[in-house]
Each structure stands twice: as C-alpha cells, then as structure tokens.
C-alpha cells in the first residue's frame, strides 16, 4: 500500500498543473476564435482602401504570389481612414454624442437602479427571488418588439400623450418620438436590469449590523447609508455602470427607432458607412476606435478589482 502511494505521488504532481491549464485553455480558445481573430480581420480592413470589387477593399493578401505578395500587401496598408476620422467633425461629433448619451443614461440608470436594487436587497428573504425575476421578466419579450412598443407609446397619438392629456398635465399633445428624450427613455428602459442585478448582488451581501454600528457611532441613518452602504456597494456600482455604459455607447437600434434623423450615435454612423456607403474600411476604423475608447473604462475597472483583491 505504501509503495503504491509512493510511486503514484510524482505522477499526480506532474498531472496537477494540467487541470488549471485546461480550464484556462477553454476561454482562451473561445476568445481567440470569436474575438481576437475577427478583431484582427476588422483591424486589417480598417487599414485598407475601399474599391468597387469583391471584397470591396484593397489590398487583399495573396499568398499564392509568395514573399512578393506579402510585401505588396503590407505596402498597401495605410492609416488614411484614421486620419479621415480625426479630421471630419461628423465622426468626432458622433463619438462625443455617443459617449455623452452613454454617460448620461448610465447616471440616470444608477439613480433609478440603486433604489430598486436596495429595495429588493432589503425585502423579506422569500420575496427576493420573485422580485429579481420580475426585473428580468421583460427579457421574455423580444427586444425589438419592446422598442416598437415604445414607438407606439411615444408617438403623437400614443399612450403617453393620451395619459398626460387625460390627467390634464398638458393641453396639446407633445412631441416625444424622434427626440433625445425618446432615446433616453428607450435606453433606460432596456438597460435597467443590467444595472439592477449587479447592484443587487453587492447590496444583498451587505451586513446590516454595519449600519447599526454606524448609527451607534453617531451617524444618522442617511449618513450611515452614504458612509457605509455606498462605499461597500462600489464594486456593484462599477460593474453595473460598465455593463450599461459600454453597450449603450455602441447602441444602434434604440437611437435608430426612437431618435430623430439629425445627430446620430456612433452605431448609426457605422451602419451608414457599412450598408449605405459600402465603405467597409471606414466602418472598420470606426469600430476599432470605438473599441479603443471603451477599453479605457474596462482597464480602470480591472485595475480597481485587482487592488481590491490585494487588500484581502
């Protein structure tokens, strides 16, 4: 028995690292195949020029031409599209508008989502799963249908104006559809679960005795909330904000269906370049820049998380 154990020992020691390696391998393969690969293709297209051909850009890597083919390919790449993006105010405005809308709606989402998440976290234990399910419930209806429903609600003869007229708040129907307000309504409505769920997750873990300790030490309840609950829910706030901010910045459907035809968000600009102008290289450059812009908050979040882990 003892000898058998001894001979087994080195073998298990060698095998041990394979488990963790395999576990990391799966997401690594997934990300390489479905994110890194496609991203490199998009990056390459963004450095190309548009042509009327199939595919609609040049240069195309011709491996059959051997070494000369690769050299021609590299020589054909240029940063011209990026220069264009920086020089044309249409694109810059579009980016800034997207970031502004994303930031504003994330703030609104936080202000609405926090009380909801707090309320759920403080509800009786048995009621909490039901309330969480209620938050997720809208997902059972297709996203597009829900946005079209908002078109219906916000139009001139829509439900919102009917209600406001009926209770006498307004005399004349207001214009809701095709305004920025409509975009904000659509975004806040659609993204609320993404804000509430991470906030709930961090608030639910909170030890209520900490609030008692704060009041015991001389804090009125509102101050205890500000000094204890809010800082401790910071990871949830950051997670919720990122989960909302990043996709909102690239949002296409909501501004396209609810917004006006004037100023566009970057998703719409990209769509126009790609489908209307058939300019794949510029569309790709837009996508790459958007990714670079959105990488900043992700990196900040990662940095904060690592620091948080170090503390423990």
């Amino acid at each position: 028995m003892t000898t058998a154990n001894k001979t087994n020992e080195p073998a298990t020691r060698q095998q041990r690292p394979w488990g963790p390696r395999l576990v990391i391998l799966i997401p690594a393969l997934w990300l390489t195949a479905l994110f890194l690969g496609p991203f490199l293709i998009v990056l390459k297209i963004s450095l190309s020029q548009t042509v009327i051909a199939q595919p609609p850009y040049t240069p195309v890597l011709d491996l059959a031409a051997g070494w000369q083919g690769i050299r021609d390919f590299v020589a054909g790449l240029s940063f011209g599209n990026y220069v264009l993006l920086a020089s044309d105010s249409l694109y810059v405005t579009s980016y800034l508008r997207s970031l502004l809308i994303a930031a504003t709606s994330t703030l609104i989402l936080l202000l609405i989502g926090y009380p909801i998440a707090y309320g759920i976290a403080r509800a009786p234990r048995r009621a909490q799963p039901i309330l969480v399910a209620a938050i997720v419930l809208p997902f059972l209806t297709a996203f597009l249908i829900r946005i079209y429903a908002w078109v219906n609600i916000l139009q001139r003869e829509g439900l919102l104006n009917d209600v406001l007229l009926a209770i006498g708040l307004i005399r004349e129907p207001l214009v809701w559809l095709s305004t920025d307000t409509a975009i904000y309504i659509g975004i806040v409505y659609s993204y609320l679960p993404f804000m509430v769920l991470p906030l709930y997750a961090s608030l639910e873990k909170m030890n209520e005795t900490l609030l008692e300790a704060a009041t015991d030490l001389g804090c009125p309840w509102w101050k205890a909330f500000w000094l204890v609950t809010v800082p401790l829910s910071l990871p949830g706030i950051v997670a919720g904000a990122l989960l909302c901010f990043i996709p909102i910045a690239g949002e296409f459907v909501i501004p396209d269906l609810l917004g006006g035809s004037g100023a566009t968000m970057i998703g719409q600009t990209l769509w126009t370049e790609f489908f209307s102008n058939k300019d794949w290289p510029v569309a790709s450059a837009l996508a790459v820049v958007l990714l670079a812009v959105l990488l900043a908050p992700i990196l900040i979040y990662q940095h904060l998380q690592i620091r948080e882990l170090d503390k423990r």
Partner: protein
Amino acid sequence: MTDSLHGHRGRTFAPWKDCASHPLVRFDGVSKRFGDVPAVERLSLDIYEGEFFALLGPSGSGKSTLLRTLAGFEQPSEGRILLDGQNISHVPPHRRPVNMMFQSYALFPHLSVAGNIAFGLKQENLSKAEIGERVRDMLALVQLQDFDERKPGQLSGGQRQRVALARALVKRPRVLLLDEPLSALDRKLREETRFELIELQRRLGLTFIMVTHDQDEAMALSDRIGIMNEGRLVQVATPSEIYEQPSSRWVAGFVGDVNLIEGQLAETGPAGSMVECAAGGRLRVAQKVDVPPGTSLWLAVRPEKIEMVKEAAAAGENSFAGAVTDIGYLGDSSVFKVKLDNGLVLRAAAANRTRALEQPLRRGDRVCLRWPHDAGVLLVQ
C-alpha cells in the same frame, strides 16, 4: 458571605447595597414584543456607575433584546429606560451616549483600523488634530499601534476584537455595551482577553454591560450577573451569590452543575433544617427557611462539594451509600455518577491531584457520598 462587601474580584464595590447611590442605567418596567411574541417582559433593573454587569441567559431569553433597547436599536413596547436619570427611551441610537461592541465586531471592511476607530469621532465634528490624537491613544491602549493602516480583513480574530473595543471606547461612552464580546475567539485567547477586559474596565472606570451565554465568562468578568430566562430577570446577584445561593432550581441548574434532591421539610429553625428525602433518608441543612414544615422543597448540592469515600459504610447524617455507574475524566477533575441505594443518582466531582493514570475508582465500586450541613442550599421554587 451575604454581608461581604468584597466582590469576588477582590474590590470593595457594591453600590447596589447603598440606598443613597443613584443608578446610572435604570430599566423601569421595560417590555419588548415583536408582533405578539414577547422578548422582554416588565423588566426592571438598576446598573451603577463603574459596574461590570453581565446579562446571562440561554439563547432567546431576551438578553440581547434588552441590550439593544439600551443602545436604541429597539424601542421598548412599554416602560422607560433612564440614563443618568434622563428618560432616553425615544432618543435615536446616534444621539445616545452609549456605544456597543458588536458580537461579530461589525468592523467597516472598507476602512483601515485607524479609519474604523476615527469613524465615531468624525461624527462629533472634532478637529483633525484631536481625532488623530485620540485615535493614537486608543491604538496604544489596545496595542495596535503598528496596525493602523491595515484593513479588518488583514487582522486576526483577537486583533479585530481589540479594534472593535477601541472603536467603541474612543467615543468615551457613559456605558459600553458588549454583545458576546469574546464568543468569536478561540478558548485560549478568550481566557487571556477576559483579564485584559477587566483590567481595561478598571483602569478607565467605565460602566460595562455585557450580554453572554457563557457562564464562565459572566462569572470571571462581572461585578453582578443578571440571569434572564424567557424575557424575565430571574436573579440579580454577584457571581458567588448566584453560584452558592441560587434563587431557584432553574438558576441552580443553569449556572454550573448541580444535584437536586427532592424532599419535604421536617423542621426548621435557627439551628438549621431537617428534610425528609423523597427517596428515603434524612438531610440536615444549615440553612433556615421561611416555609412551614411539610412543604416540599429541593436541596441543591454542587458536585464538587460532595465528598466521596471508598468504604460503603454509610454512617451519620447526609451520608449515603451507592455504586459508581459512570466516570467522566475531564483532566483537571473527574465527575462520578453514583447510584445511591435509595434510587437517587447523584454526581460528585473530585480534583485529580495526583498524576495517577489509573483512576482509583472503577465502575461498579461501592462508595459512600457525604457532604457538610452548609454544602447545600434549600430551594422552595
């Protein structure tokens, strides 16, 4: 023993015996109900300045609820709570000059040790310099000077306990409330910390009110113990009075180990009482009781006060023959279960004074149990 002014902690401190002294804290007919469930019922209690008072009871006895009404986390359903003669029943917790050390410490995980201790002072709008100085003094008092930058998650259990203590003490409370202060520590550390806590309380001259379910803790720390059961105080007395003169069978059984022998009072007088044992035999007790002969009562005798001799020759009063049925070896002492010839089963404890690996007694050995007249206490309830 009864008229001794010296507490078991060896100090002359018994303000509860002095009619002229005013209580610092007074619970005046306090009741607390949660819905229909009563947690505390019409409880009155006075606690004096400088006292270390322990509320001892089984879980669910209402002791924590009582402490929380004093902290302000619970509003009494009835009655008043007075502090320094002022009714504070409706003062919110953040305005009460009492501070609590929580059972699980409730340290703020996002603040450093110094930040935790400074938290309460920052609410008092003190100058930065004064806060810094008081935090430094407190860190020195609990010997955590080198840990001020650490987060609670980086501390050991004992260090966390000291931070919690410092955080409450730095506010200079009129009364410090301690909710199971040592229950989260392991045994060895708990015993060391007991002495630190007494030492600290004595040095600061503060009033401590502690809730505990650990009778050793209550005995070792407090000037007086209030025993609670089912929302009521069943006895308030010094630790030695509680142990030697329990007021009821319940208290005798709850605090320490006890043998209860049922009987009927045969006679009583200044010279003592004679009890007719229900199982047979007569017991002589040094105590005089105020009930007529014929009343049924119980004699409570602690196991360590029963002497056990090997010879089965039962002779004289309070002496019974029997056989050992079980032996519990506890290291420092052993507990013997003895079935008497009259059917009673009693426990006797003996200190293990020698290093004999073999117990001198075995199961089945014939023994004789006896105890002096003043070893037991007669309980009518």
